[in-house]
């Protein structure tokens, strides 16, 4: 087989996990109006102010228009053709892993996910050893001792309404953008984290989350507050393939870091990307923003994006506190007909604020991968520093890589540096690997992981290993 056709196969791997059968659900009719929002709010027993907040967002949304500036192309979304409330009933559970699609099991195996966890992910009835409720309880007890609040946002609204009220919408206002407004009006659920003063969260909020974050719905809302001197590392998503009935996902994530607090937010996104011809697939329109509100605070975003048909996502940091630090590390892989327009915004407000951007785009197939980033230094941001590195790697000759960095500097003490390169996986590289006994598929994985190393290193250890395998899998084919 010649190199080109091997490459074609390598990048031509299908997402083998289509949609599953319908789950029995309690449904509202399609469409969005005030009554729908009232219904959602009522079902969640929300306080009156929350309903008002949602309704205000809905009013704002109605007068907004869908953004068209991202470098992506998709048929228009009919917002009246979406079901905004579907309470998941008990999932039809399988009795053992034997009933699970062997392809999925093979992927779990490749990713190295522990057996018990595999069962939960695949929807197999779990035994007493790893009952999610007991796991949850164990963690909750431990966290509660430290005063950490970690629960669904709907629960937080019941138990800690004052905290939610203080912070929700404080980083991403309801009218921030079209999808943020929509999310504010109809968000289903999500996570709430509060780390009290001086507390260092002792665990990665990960394993627990991976198991429990399922079925949070298409309009997820996350709010994380790190009080003075605290630290938390939060993991979102899952390397395992994610199936979902909903095509449109519009999540909002807000992070608040007070004085000397640090939030590390890591994402692995592997939603269904659509088939080879671009049919189906998730639209992932996410607003993620953190504010370094206090002095010496730090927010770090790390993302590994391999899924979704359309991705539109710019995890950002507002560097308000003096000496605060914002970081963005990203690997975005697009294959087949996937389109991604992703990047970050670093807004320097405080003195001596620093930001660092490392973006690694990988395009294969006929996909389009765009980096879009803004570095803005306001006149008051004395001594701001930014360094950005945006690299693109191309696999095959039918894909595209684009970089749109916006640099706006209004303070002469700032130093802003931006570098970008575009290169390909050369035939020379592949042949060299072949000559050392490494086949083309393994060579592509090796090269891609080397290329993305700087970002993968930012992930918590166990996640990094999985993410590395995920990159290989998402570019893998049945090389014969």
């Amino acid at each position, binding site marked *: 087989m010649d190199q080109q056709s091997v490459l074609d196969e390598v990048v031509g791997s299908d997402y083998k996990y289509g949609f599953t059968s319908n789950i029995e659900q309690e449904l509202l009719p399609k469409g969005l109006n005030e009554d729908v929002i009232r219904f959602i709010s009522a079902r969640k027993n929300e306080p009156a102010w929350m309903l008002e907040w949602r309704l205000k967002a809905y009013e704002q949304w109605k007068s907004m228009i869908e953004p068209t500036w991202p470098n992506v192309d998709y048929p228009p979304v009919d917002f009246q053709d979406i079901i905004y409330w579907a309470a998941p009933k008990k999932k039809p559970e399988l009795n053992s892993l034997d009933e699970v699609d062997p392809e999925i099991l093979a992927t779990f195996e490749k990713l190295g996910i522990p057996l018990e966890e595999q069962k939960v992910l695949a929807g197999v009835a779990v035994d007493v050893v790893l009952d999610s409720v007991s796991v949850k309880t164990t963690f909750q007890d431990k966290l509660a001792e430290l005063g950490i609040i970690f629960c669904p946002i709907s629960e937080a609204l019941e138990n800690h309404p004052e905290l939610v009220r203080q912070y929700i919408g404080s980083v991403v206002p309801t009218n921030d953008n079209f999808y943020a407004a929509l999310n504010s009006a109809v968000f289903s659920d999500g996570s709430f984290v509060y780390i009290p003063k001086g507390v260092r969260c002792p665990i990665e909020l990960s394993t627990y989350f991976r198991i429990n974050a399922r079925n949070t719905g298409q309009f997820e809302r996350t709010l994380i507050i790190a009080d003075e001197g605290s630290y938390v590392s939060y993991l979102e998503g899952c390397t395992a393939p994610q199936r979902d009935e909903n095509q449109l996902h519009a999540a909002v994530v807000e992070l608040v870091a007070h004085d000397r607090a640090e939030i590390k937010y890591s994402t692995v996104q592997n939603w269904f990307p659509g088939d080879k011809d671009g049919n189906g697939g998730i639209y992932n329109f996410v607003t993620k923003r953190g504010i370094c509100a206090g002095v010496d605070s730090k927010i770090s975003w790390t993302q590994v994006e391999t899924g979704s048909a359309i991705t539109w996502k710019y995890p950002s940091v507002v560097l308000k506190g003096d000496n605060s630090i914002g970081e963005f590390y990203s690997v975005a892989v697009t294959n087949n007909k996937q389109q991604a327009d992703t990047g970050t915004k670093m807004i320097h407000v405080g003195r001596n604020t620093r930001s660092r951007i490392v973006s690694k785009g990988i395009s294969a197939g006929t996909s389009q991968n765009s980096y879009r980033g803004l570095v803005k230094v306001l*006149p008051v941001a004395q001594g701001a520093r930014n360094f950005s590195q945006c690299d*693109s790697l191309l696999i095959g000759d*039918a894909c*595209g890589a*684009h*970089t749109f960095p916006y*640099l706006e*500097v209004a303070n002469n003490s*700032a*130093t802003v540096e931006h570098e970008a390169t575009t290169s390909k996986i050369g035939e020379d590289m592949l042949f060299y690997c072949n000559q050392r006994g490494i086949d083309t598929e393994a060579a592509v994985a090796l090269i891609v992981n080397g290329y993305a190393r700087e970002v993968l290193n930012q992930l918590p250890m166990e996640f990094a290993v999985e993410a590395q395998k995920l990159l290989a899998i998402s570019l893998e084919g049945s090389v014969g």
Partner: protein
Amino acid sequence: MAQHRILELASHALKHVEGAVATADGHLYRLRREGHDALQRQGIPTPRHEEWKYTNVFPFIGSDFTLAVNRWSREAVATPPCASRDEIAQAIGDHYRIAIVNGVVCDVPSDLQADFEILELTPELVDSDEAVRQHLGTSAPMHGHPFVALNTALLESGIVIRLRRNCTLSRPLHISILTDTSESPIMVAPRILVIAEEGAEADIVQSHHVMGSHLALDVSVCECHVAPAAHVRYHKLVDDADQLRSIATITAEVHRDGTFTSHAVSIGGKFVRNDLIVRLCEPSSQGFLYGVSLLADHEFTDNHTVVDHMVPHCHSEELYKGIYDGASTGVFNGKIYVRPQAQKTTAYQSNHTLLLSSKAQVQAKPQLEIWADDVKCSHGATMGQVDEEAIFYFRARGIDKDTAKALLTYAFITEVVEKITLDGLRDLLTTRIARKLSAEALLF
């Protein structure tokens, strides 16, 4: 509203011509109507337009312009004295000259070398000369470029510069665009078409000046056709007169083994917008794009560049540097576009900025749009101030801080000017830079 006035002027100018020439069906008229329609459709761009995001023209242009209609003067017209023009003329030494005064092309030299022509762009010429027809309006796009559309709508006359096969221009050509606004605000829309045939080589200097106390809105378009193995070096300079509003588009289509080199120099300038589009449309063609913006007070320069790699094996290099003092603003938007078939492209871009004052601003958007895989492309952008460490080094050697700063700033910017191969022009610009930086003492 300024927008309406300009659109009105364009409409009026077109009607005037078509009224006079009832059966106006030539190529030029069609082109003008297209320009008019494109302008009416797009309007004058606001910052909502992505390519005008950082450049709001409205505060800079008034609304009461008089349109100076383009035409040629056969008689010898004494061009008004203009110190900044004369300074350039003197610097470049022996040269061919042509002046456009308030739209009137005059001072056309008669002693041209045999393989070099300067022609009046007329409807008849466009209809009768295939090369002119082919190249006029082809490389300067009207869609997405409302000011190109405006210029085209007003294209009553213009200049065609033709360099015949293997012509090497023995002297540089200096085109000065002078606008006399001593009586009222004036809008001019000069149009130039350069046809460099196979193997031709030329240096062209295009400078923009204003005389008088009212505003001059100078919306110019120059299209260059660079045939195989032809080499064109184009220099665009602006006066630092406060009254000048220069919106200039320069485009080039470069063919096999040809090169197009551009130098866009703004040493001062209240409002300068340069759109430079270089299309590398045959293999082994090359584009070199250099720019200098040295601004103070409330000066403003926006450099928008596009390098379009259309075919394999082409090379482009781009270096833009800016120094912004006072409350000045510099904008740089550089796009490298590599089309799917343009394999083996090498394209490098860098943009560096020094901010000298706390009120100065810079906005940059260096874009790469890559659709081919076997390419080497990179861009780099930096923004900062003079290296404190370097200043300290100078001081440790007995050189005071201000001198050290001036010297480093001067060195930073002259790196780009050094690329200019016209010695006299380079020396003039170096001197003007030193003068602007109050660093004349540094000149040896």
